[in-house]
């Protein structure tokens, strides 16, 4: 048996292709005769459309078609509400092209199709739209006041959803509290900003009635379902392929965006392939965003620091529409108690319509906001009670013996119980304290103060519900000619390295090299059962489905090989692409086993000769394929988790605040992280580091700015500050591996881990650094130099 691949730092299979420029992203795919789409978008946050004149644009040379709501037939509908929930009434979703009203700057009003993108953009400027602008209110707290301008007249006070969840008996516990800490915190809006914007290309084969769509999506099966349903086509006539996708981070799990319907529509109508490659500014004003929440959180504690109840009341900005339901707010509300043993919880949120880009998940999906609220509140409680910040957490963390710890009454975003399934929360805290050097820090801080430097230590703990259902599948097949193993699943990768971790899982079962396992994802033509890539779920859900499937194929292989080798199945070992009986010269390649299990009429190679009808080993006393048997070595299976599995971690940092420039210099940043068993530690670290960098962005740099009229004012990479390498500090990561009891591989998700606690950690550190200068609070991210200056100036 070769060395176990699960847990090994294996190099990625996909890299050589991406490194040599052979990646095939949507815009790289050669579609002869392709036409290009560009959109006319609303320049107003809220307006009535009096009329749209496309006549001049239609006449422009090179223009093939101009679409408005009036000539898209069955597409002129309100798009589906993807995740219904009873807390919403008459949930509003947008139309592919605006009819009557526009609700945010960037909303699609018309689509121009032309010979190239240059001409399409020329013509888009010639579409004349007559708008009557309407009043808007951008401030979340103002928007819910009586008399505030409404985004949708159907929704008084702009309330899209109002939802309360309760665990335990909070009312009783509130009365028993000896100390109450209250803070108001705010996390501002950001965006995924994947390096590849969204993309969609479509080709319609009229002869076969087949539509093929290449879509830079996280949810090709979802897109297929949407297309089949809205176009009234059979699902097997719609093939959606997510080719190489340049990052997703949640923005690309939303579907259908208007272009995902309109581009296929144009391809069908025009009889030519059509593509739409979103540009960067469109990505800022047309593709969904996330984050703004304002929490009023209260901790009800004993004098000892033990928190006996938590009440949180928050506003969630859902933008102009709520197509993804309350998912983001629900994740925030069910993560609000973090890793703590708080038995009584009352959490209410109101989702508020604002005339801005719609809000759907971005990496973190409510978790960074919840973490920011609870962790800033814990720091505040510690300060008020005179307990140190590690100690207050230690007194409240869920203990090892408490697992699984269920928060009765709270339902997570999958509609299932919040059950923190496993962990070593106290050990992780201790590791963080040692790694950041808590014991030496006070001395270090005071030495720095003597030199006029403001040094602070920041700390935050987070939990992450990962691996949501409903399910994913796996298909594993040993190829009879090459002996390579083909693996399919229904979700898709945007750079996470699925092709390698899934290959590792299969490699362990079948004894083949990792590079001989070919993972094909994201093509509804190859595997059509499953959901999508989101919520840190691929390794958990698809990983376990593929594992279960690989176990089945292993059994088939051993059984067939034992037959060929005339051995007891228990003696057969799969190793290096062979089935063999150790200690003998009896071995047969997996290709030959796969071939032998497939009764053949034609011998297309020498191995195949042995499987033909007149070969010596062939059966002549019955059907070559016994009833109930299938040819080849192949299986399909599924994994459906009973509920989410909860990863967690601790971040700590030492920061220096430069009083001259108000710059935050992160001197040291450590992360203790536990996502259960790690399939590939290098890839896990990569996920954490990447999430961390986005966390740095959210903590210190990135904020979507709107003016009071609802114009986005920094919808470009000059003004929206994504950190370069020079802005991202080094991070030291240590792992615990507490297996999840909820799945055979014992894994938990890691995709979002890195970003969740960074804002809370740095706010904690900056506050600590400036404590001697007046004790200003940092209850809002991103934290800008101006905010730091203001805090110092107040002192």
């Amino acid at each position, binding site marked *: 048996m070769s060395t176990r691949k699960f847990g090994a730092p294996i190099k990625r299979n996909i890299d050589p292709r991406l490194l040599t420029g052979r990646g095939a992203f949507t*815009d790289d795919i050669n579609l002869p005769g392709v036409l290009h789409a560009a959109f006319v978008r609303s320049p107003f946050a809220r307006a009535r459309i009096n009329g749209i004149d496309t006549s001049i644009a239609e006449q422009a040379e090179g223009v093939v078609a101009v679409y408005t709501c009036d000539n898209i037939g069955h597409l002129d509908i309100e798009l589906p509400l993807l995740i219904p929930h009873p807390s919403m009434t008459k949930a509003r979703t947008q139309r592919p092209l605006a009819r009557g009203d526009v609700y945010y700057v960037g909303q699609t009003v018309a689509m121009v199709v032309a010979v190239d993108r240059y001409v399409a953009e020329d013509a888009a400027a010639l579409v004349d739209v007559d708008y009557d602008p309407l009043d808007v209110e951008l401030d979340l707290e103002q928007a819910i006041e009586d008399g505030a301008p409404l985004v949708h007249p159907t929704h008084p006070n702009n309330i899209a959803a109002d939802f309360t969840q309760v665990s335990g008996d909070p009312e009783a516990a509130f009365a028993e509290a000896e100390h109450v800490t209250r803070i108001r915190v705010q996390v501002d809006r950001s965006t995924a900003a994947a390096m590849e914007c969204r993309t969609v290309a479509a080709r319609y084969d009229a002869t076969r009635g087949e539509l093929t769509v290449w879509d830079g999506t996280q949810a090709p099966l979802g897109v297929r379902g949407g297309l089949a349903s809205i176009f009234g086509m059979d699902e097997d006539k719609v093939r959606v392929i997510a080719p190489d996708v340049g990052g997703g981070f949640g923005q690309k799990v939303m579907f259908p965006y208007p272009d995902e319907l309109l581009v296929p529509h144009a391809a069908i109508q025009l009889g030519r392939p059509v593509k739409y490659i979103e540009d960067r500014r469109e990505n800022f004003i047309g593709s969904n965003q996330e984050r703004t929440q304002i929490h009023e959180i209260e901790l009800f504690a004993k004098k000892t620091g033990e928190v006996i109840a938590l009440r949180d009341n928050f506003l969630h900005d859902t933008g102009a529409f709520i197509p993804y339901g309350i998912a983001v707010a629900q994740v925030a509300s069910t993560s609000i108690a973090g890793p703590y043993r708080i038995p009584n919880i009352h959490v209410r949120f109101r989702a508020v319509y604002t005339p801005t880009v719609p809000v759907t998940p971005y990496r973190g999906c409510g978790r960074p906001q919840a973490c920011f609220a609870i962790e800033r509140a814990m720091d505040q409680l510690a300060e008020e009670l005179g307990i140190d910040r590690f100690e207050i957490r230690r007194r409240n963390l869920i203990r090892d013996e408490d697992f699984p710890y269920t928060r009765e009454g709270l339902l997570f975003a999958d509609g299932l119980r919040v059950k923190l399934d496993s962990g070593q929360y106290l050990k992780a805290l201790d590791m963080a304290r040692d790694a950041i050097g808590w014991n030496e820090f006070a001395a270090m801080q005071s030495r720095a103060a003597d030199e006029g430097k403001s040094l602070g230590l920041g700390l935050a703990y987070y939990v992450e519900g990962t691996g949501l259902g409903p399910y994913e599948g796996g298909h594993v097949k040993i190829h009879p000619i090459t002996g390579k193993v083909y693996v399919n699943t229904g979700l898709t990768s945007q750079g996470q390295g699925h092709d390698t971790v899934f290959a590792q899982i299969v490699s362990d079962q079948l004894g083949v090299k990792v590079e001989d396992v070919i993972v094909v994802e994201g093509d509804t033509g190859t595997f059509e059962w499953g959901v999508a890539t989101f919520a840190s779920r691929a390794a958990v859900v698809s990983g376990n489905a593929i594992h279960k499937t690989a176990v089945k194929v292993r059994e088939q292989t051993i059984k067939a090989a034992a037959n060929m080798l005339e051995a007891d199945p228990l003696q057969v070992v799969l190793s290096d692409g062979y089935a063999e009986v150790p200690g003998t010269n009896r071995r047969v390649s997996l290709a030959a086993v796969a071939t032998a299990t497939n009764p053949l009429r034609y011998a297309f190679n020498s191995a195949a000769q042995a499987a033909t009808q007149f070969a010596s080993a062939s059966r002549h006393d019955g059907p070559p394929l016994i009833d109930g048997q299938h040819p080849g070595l192949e299986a399909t299976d599924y994994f459906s988790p009973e509920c989410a599995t909860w990863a967690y971690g601790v971040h700590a940092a030492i920061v220096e605040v430069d009083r001259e420039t108000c710059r935050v210099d992160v001197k040291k940043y450590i992360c203790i992280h536990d996502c259960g068993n790690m399939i590939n530690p290098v890839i896990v670290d990569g996920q954490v580091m990447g999430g961390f960098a986005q966390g740095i962005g959210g903590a210190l740099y990135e904020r979507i700015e709107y003016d009071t009229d609802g114009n986005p004012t920094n919808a470009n990479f000059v003004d929206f500050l994504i950190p370069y*390498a020079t802005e*991202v500090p080094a991070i030291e990561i240590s792992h615990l591996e507490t297996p999840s009891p909820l799945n055979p591989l014992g894994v938990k998700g890691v995709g979002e881990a890195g970003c969740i606690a960074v804002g809370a950690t740095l706010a904690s550190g900056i506050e600590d650094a400036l404590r001697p200068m007046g004790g200003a609070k940092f209850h809002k991210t991103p934290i800008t130099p101006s905010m730091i200056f203001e805090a110092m100036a107040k002192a």
Partner: protein
Amino acid sequence: MSRHEHLERSIPSTSSDPTAEVTVTINGVTLTRQVSTRMLLSDFIRHGLRLTGTHVGCEHGVCGACTIMIDGRAARSCLTFAVQADGAEIRTIESEEKDDGTLSALQQAFQECHGLQCGYCTPGMIMNIRSHFDSGEELDLSDDGIRELISGNLCRCTGYANIVKAVRRAAELTGRA
């Protein structure tokens, strides 16, 4: 739609933009093409020459995904018109692999160090680093030095730490460290 609608449509294949003749040497191959005068070099390379390894991330010069080498220096292909490249020598990611199909030291280092995830920024990142390696300048292989070297190329996946490692590893592999 009517079954005969397509018969009534005459769909053009190319725009009627004014064009100019451009001769470039790209990855060692000299060729001449007619291009629209307003075509960005990034579009010319990707769609005109079908060298799609060069990616486009912002088209306003900030993200660096479209970075190529023009006359030996790193440049943003989205901030250059194809006509401006007339007579220029261009290198793209497609030149990086060795003739025998093996990865260059830089590419190997990126794979070894897990310096890429989605791979979208990677070609631009590598061409920028390549220009520094080839310039003969002394490489500052401290963490800060490498971060400064790759600052100007946005990556949204890796958090950069592994790219920093990859640059250092590539310097080792090429005897620069």
